[in-house]
């Protein structure tokens, strides 16, 4: 009797394993989560460490992150020091050799594409600067295609039996982006420009040639002074544009500047919703295009 129960149990465990997704993936942000869903689909169980309302640079380590990393086969980070404050200590505490930087289980999106703003002075008088380059690559759909293909290759190394499916999914994502690019280009062709809080959406602006008219903060990571803001307002007076800031950035300065200039100020997350997949990511870019595109 006991033996039969045991056998049934073992059988169930084996079946469970067979049904379970072959890979356990941890994404640091919802954009990376969307990419993992797009490329790996059902072949990966996914946990996303930070929601779209979080500042990925300021985040703190939580024990639940360490737990998720403990059994992960792959961690997908945006990288280039964006998660420097919490991901390295969380990985170090997770006692999981497979996901340490330098191993196959560690994937940085920023390491797959050329970066903007690289090579600045390493001087913190200029704020919280990162001379390695601007890490916010995930708002550029074209770079995201490159990243998706690199991710597919990485997944294929970790799970050879799914290699074809990963590559196919990456190409599906690539063609979805390609399909939308002309519309986005057309809509953003005559966009007057954007004032950002932080240089965090420049990859999107750069991709579509939209001018960055200024940033609310004078230097990265330091809130603006009143004088700096009035100088900015004086400089932009009489021009057209839109102010976009993230949910975790203080709304006071952007809304005041918008009032002074008669512009729109939009609160828009850099990251797509927590549950977004490839299409969710593209829909999130639609929101950005809507916000930036000139109003009739």
């Amino acid at each position, binding site marked *: 009797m006991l033996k039969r129960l045991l056998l049934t149990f073992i059988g169930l465990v084996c079946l469970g394993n067979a049904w379970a997704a072959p890979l356990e993936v941890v994404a640091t942000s919802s954009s990376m989560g969307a990419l993992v869903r797009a490329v790996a689909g059902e072949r990966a169980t996914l946990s996303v460490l930070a929601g779209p309302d*979080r500042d990925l640079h300021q985040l703190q380590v939580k024990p639940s992150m360490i737990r998720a990393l403990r059994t992960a086969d792959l961690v997908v*980070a945006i990288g280039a020091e964006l998660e420097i404050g919490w991901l390295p*200590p969380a990985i170090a505490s997770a006692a999981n050799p497979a996901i340490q930087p330098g191993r196959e289980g560690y994937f940085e999106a920023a390491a797959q594409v*050329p970066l903007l703003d*690289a090579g600045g*002075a390493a001087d913190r008088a*200029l704020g*919280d600067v990162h*001379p390695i380059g601007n890490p916010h690559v995930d708002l550029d759909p074209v770079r995201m295609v490159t990243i998706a293909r690199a991710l597919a290759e990485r997944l294929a190394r970790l799970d050879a039996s799914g290699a074809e499916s990963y590559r196919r999914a990456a190409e599906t994502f690539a063609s979805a982006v390609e399909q939308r690019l002309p519309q986005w280009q057309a809509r953003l062709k005559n966009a007057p420009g954007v004032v950002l809080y932080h240089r965090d959406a420049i990859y999107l602006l750069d991709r579509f040639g*939209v001018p960055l008219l200024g940033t609310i903060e004078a230097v990265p990571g330091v809130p603006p002074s009143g004088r700096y803001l009035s100088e900015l307002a004086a400089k932009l007076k009489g021009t057209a544009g839109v102010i976009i800031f993230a949910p975790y950035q203080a709304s006071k300065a952007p809304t005041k500047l918008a009032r002074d200039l008669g512009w729109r100020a939009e609160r828009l997350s850099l990251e797509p919703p927590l549950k977004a997949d490839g299409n969710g990511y593209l829909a999130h870019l639609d929101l950005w295009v809507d916000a930036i595109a000139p109003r009739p």
Partner: protein
Amino acid sequence: MQKTALAAAMTAAFLAPATSVAATDPEIAELKAMLRTMKQDYEQRIQALERRLAKAERATSAAQESAQPMNDAASKPMTAPSVSPPVASTPSPTTGGFGALTSGSAFNPQISVILDGNYYHDGIDGAGAALVGQAFQPSGGHAHAHEGEMDAEHSHGAMQNGFNFSEAEIAFSATVDPYFDAAAYLAVTNAGDVYLEEAWMQTRNLPQGLRVKAGKFLSDFGYINRQHPHQWDFVDQNLPYLNLLGDHGLQDTGIQLTWLPALPVYTLFGVEALQGDQELFGTTLDEVEQIELDLGDTYDGPRLWTAFAKVAPDLGQNHALQVGVSYAHNNQHQEVQTHAHEGEDEVHENGFAGDASLWGVDLVYRYYGAGPQGQGDFKFQTEYLRSIKDLDVRSSPHGELIGSNQTFTTDGLYAQAIYGVAPKWALGLRYDVLGLTNEVSGDRDESYGSSDRWTVDLTWSLSEFSQLRAQYARNDILVAENEREHFDAFYLQFIVSLGSHGAHSF
């Protein structure tokens, strides 16, 4: 083969003049102009390319030169820059970019220096900062054994009214090789003494969630024990840690094994074997005193053993909770207690020897408000410590006492809450108490009162790298059996961090 080539060349030679003859003079001029512009065009392009190449080369050594710092956002290009020469950021096609992009320099360890200084004032001529670490408990091996040693000099509590420089902490950390990480933390005091806070190596590669750490380190007992002073939410350490474990907490030399099993919730187990050279919890006296007081030799290490477990359920994006229970046992504790009888000049010394145990329970709850710069964040943290020293009287002027057993029990609790009242501003409140139980039992029965204090502080984090803090505390300290000291203490503290980005640990 050669023949055909020759023929082709000859045909071309004959044909070429024919075509040029056909061309008119203006056409020739036009062609010449076109060639000229083409030449110029190409020269310009080549020059531009050369400039870009030179720029890229400069950029690689930009750290030293820092040729043209970006002054502010206004002086930056009005459009987002076009794709810059990808200097260090080119993905390597061979590795496919397994690594982490970092501006940390090559093989040097990550270095940071943390400066911690303050202005202090209390109502009792500056004695207060030391007094909070000397709250009365029946077992008090206070610094008696370590007088003149480094420990006594490098005391975090040694403040004077006025300006104090607590310490400059210099931290190095790096990956040693595929097998180990290592770190070293040095504290340089105001007097210029260098004190080794921590120096350890830790495994990277063990399977099954196991990790081993070896060297000198802060024990993972409890919650606050492993934090360095600059990581605290208040200027000073809480009363239970300060009085039961001393200025440095459980900081010792030894080995730690932790296990993070793959359970559905975060669960960490750990054990440590440590030498046992403690300031308060398991001290041993020097050889002369040991002979004088008949206490016996210092045992071989490891003498201090700890075990701890921490559990943290996943409460989603906004919340985190961790509870822990810890136990420590030092199998040797020696102390000498002095007393004088009324009307006599002679000071009597009783020598005690035995062992010491410590229980700890901790709970930390955090709420992440997702507001700008910590606004709306909340952290509640509480710990309970209970120290039990089971000692025998080994020597005494009162012969009848020798051989008697006395158990010294002192406990303590702190609870503190920090709330982000505005971007960059956090308000903190702490209550700490020592000696809810403060007694001797066994062959002697006595009980004493407790010491407590209320503390409020306001922390202004100007950036990730600098912090200013104002703190006020109302102290009620039991300094002797029937003597209390009530006083106010005020701190203004600065902490700045130079060098590599600090960790936002839980």
